[in-house]
């Protein structure tokens, strides 16, 4: 893409992202109102008192006696100033709770994503190089297997193998409890705790990316510019890296954007299995306590993460592929 048109492209994407976020906020608002029992009685139930006068007072306090559109406006204004409500269970603002847990989730999903991309693309490239060989069949079988295995069960089986039977890796939390570590030892400790959850979350996508890379590489390898390069006497390894793999990466980037929501949804399960102190674990705790405010916050926060990730992949795509038109 020409550099001069880039700002317009960026602006268009930002507007689209903003609309999606706005729609999510509206969606959240109506979900609260769709819940059986109005929000006041839920709050009253959570703080343990529920006589009629207290309910009236709560309704007035939260503006629940106002017409619906006024409430929606107040709610929107609140979310725009990052006020996501207050968790009466945890006695903390939802935004603060989420902010606290965000780094752990970013670390987990980021590590799983990198692992999946690197291993998946490598495996796919190897398989595409020798169609019909054993590495090719291994990928097909792996993909079928991981498509069919529940994520949380993979996590439990890894715990059974590496923590319970072999006792190699910790199965619980993000760092060792009761020891003061610093510097390299601290990083190593987190790394050890990270390994199994990231592996669990990433394995499914390894299979997906391997399959995708294999398919697109085979497709690209048939095209004329590759034949031209070969006719010119470019070494085979260079053709594979510079001509085929580069072009085959484009669908992989697109797909990564599409899968972002699933990756974050999966992290809820993985964090529950491994007691990883991230947003997913927060969601699980909120579920147990029926803390709807926090659940809404988790939905909002994860949606924004997905929208941002999509924005990044869109921009990345536009930079990598000069053919993308500004629309």
């Amino acid at each position, binding site marked *: 893409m020409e550099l001069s048109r880039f700002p317009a492209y960026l602006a268009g994407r930002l507007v689209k992202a903003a609309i*999606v976020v706005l729609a999510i906020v509206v*969606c959240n608002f109506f979900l609260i109102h769709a*819940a059986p029992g109005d929000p006041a009685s839920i709050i009253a139930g959570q703080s343990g008192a529920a006589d009629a006068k207290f309910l009236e007072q709560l309704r007035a306090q939260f503006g629940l006696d106002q017409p619906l559109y006024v409430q929606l406006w107040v709610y929107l204004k609140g979310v725009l100033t990052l006020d996501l409500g207050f968790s009466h269970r945890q006695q903390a603002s939802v935004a603060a709770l989420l902010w606290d847990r965000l780094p752990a989730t970013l670390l987990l999903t980021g590590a799983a994503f990198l692992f999946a991309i690197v291993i998946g693309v490598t495996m796919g490239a190897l398989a595409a190089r020798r169609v019909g060989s054993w590495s090719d069949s291994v990928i097909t079988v792996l993909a079928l*297997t991981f498509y069919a295995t*529940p*994520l949380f069960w993979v996590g439990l089986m890894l715990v059974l193998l590496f923590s319970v039977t072999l006792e190699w890796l910790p199965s619980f939390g993000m760092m060792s409890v009761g020891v003061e570590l610093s510097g390299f030892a601290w990083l190593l400790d987190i790394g050890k705790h990270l390994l199994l959850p990231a592996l669990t979350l990433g394995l499914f996508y390894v299979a997906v990316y391997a399959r995708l890379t294999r398919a697109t590489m085979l497709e690209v390898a048939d095209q004329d510019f590759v034949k031209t390069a070969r006719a010119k006497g470019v070494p085979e390894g260079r053709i594979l890296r510079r001509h085929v793999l580069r072009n085959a990466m484009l669908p992989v980037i697109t797909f990564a954007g599409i899968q972002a*929501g699933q990756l974050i949804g999966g992290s809820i399960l993985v964090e*529950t299995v491994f007691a990883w102190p991230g947003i997913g674990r927060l*969601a699980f705790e909120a579920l147990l306590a029926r803390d709807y405010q926090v659940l809404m916050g988790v939905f909002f926060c994860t949606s924004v993460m997905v929208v941002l990730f999509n924005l990044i992949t869109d921009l990345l795509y536009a930079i990598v592929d000069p053919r993308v038109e500004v629309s």
Partner: protein
Amino acid sequence: MRGFWRNFCRNRGAVVGLVILLLVIATAIAAPWLYPGSPWDMAGMPFAPPGEMGMMLGTDSLGRDVAAGIAHGARVSLLVGAVSTVVALVIGIGLGAIAGYLGGLADDLVMRFTEFFQTIPSFVLAILLVAIFTPTIGSIVFAIAVVSWPPVARVVRAEFLSLRSREFVQASEVLGKSRISIVFGDILPNALSPIVVLSSLMVASAILLESALSFLGLGDPNMMSWGFLIGSGRSVIRMAWWMSVFPGIAIFLTVLSLNLVGEGLSDALNPRLARNRGGKA
């Protein structure tokens, strides 16, 4: 029909898948006779390992038979998978048909709506829906359907877009048939094969989704399910591995079989495509 079977059976994986799937269905139907009584009742000592005390797959922390739980859980998994897929198909076909047949503004609106649902983290939305409407079999089916219709809408729209300008549709229009009868009588029957393939994959992912929800404690509290079994085995995995291993294998086999059958259906309904791929996927 005979050609369909021959093409289906050419894919050996699909035949294996079909056999496994029929076995799972048979288990689900026969559960009340195989394991009479409630799967929630105590059947023996707590934490009996597999093979001991007459329990083929062991017992859980309350002495419930894991095998009975799996057999009864098959009913819930298959039921939720099938019903939520039907609901998602109704939503997806309806919206896809509107978008593809009417085109223009309607198409734009429906597609934006579909994109929105594909962007948001669907599992988080499903959790939220089930939690808010309290976990019952109905709310679980509803939540799964709400998050799984978008691919159907896309496929149906694409089919309708290409079919609506064909001659047989134009002929019906000239004959003065109503829009409804053109959509359901002429176009939809010709768009069925991709929908059939897609729906077998949707049942598979609905079963995975249901197991994930009930693993998190969002299952119907009156119904035994595979996800619940794994969830209850999670905290005691160090002393009772069988509680989480066997239900997981049940999920794996069922979902795998549905995926294999889906591939077989795809080969059988698009024989040309299957041959181009050299018969393997």
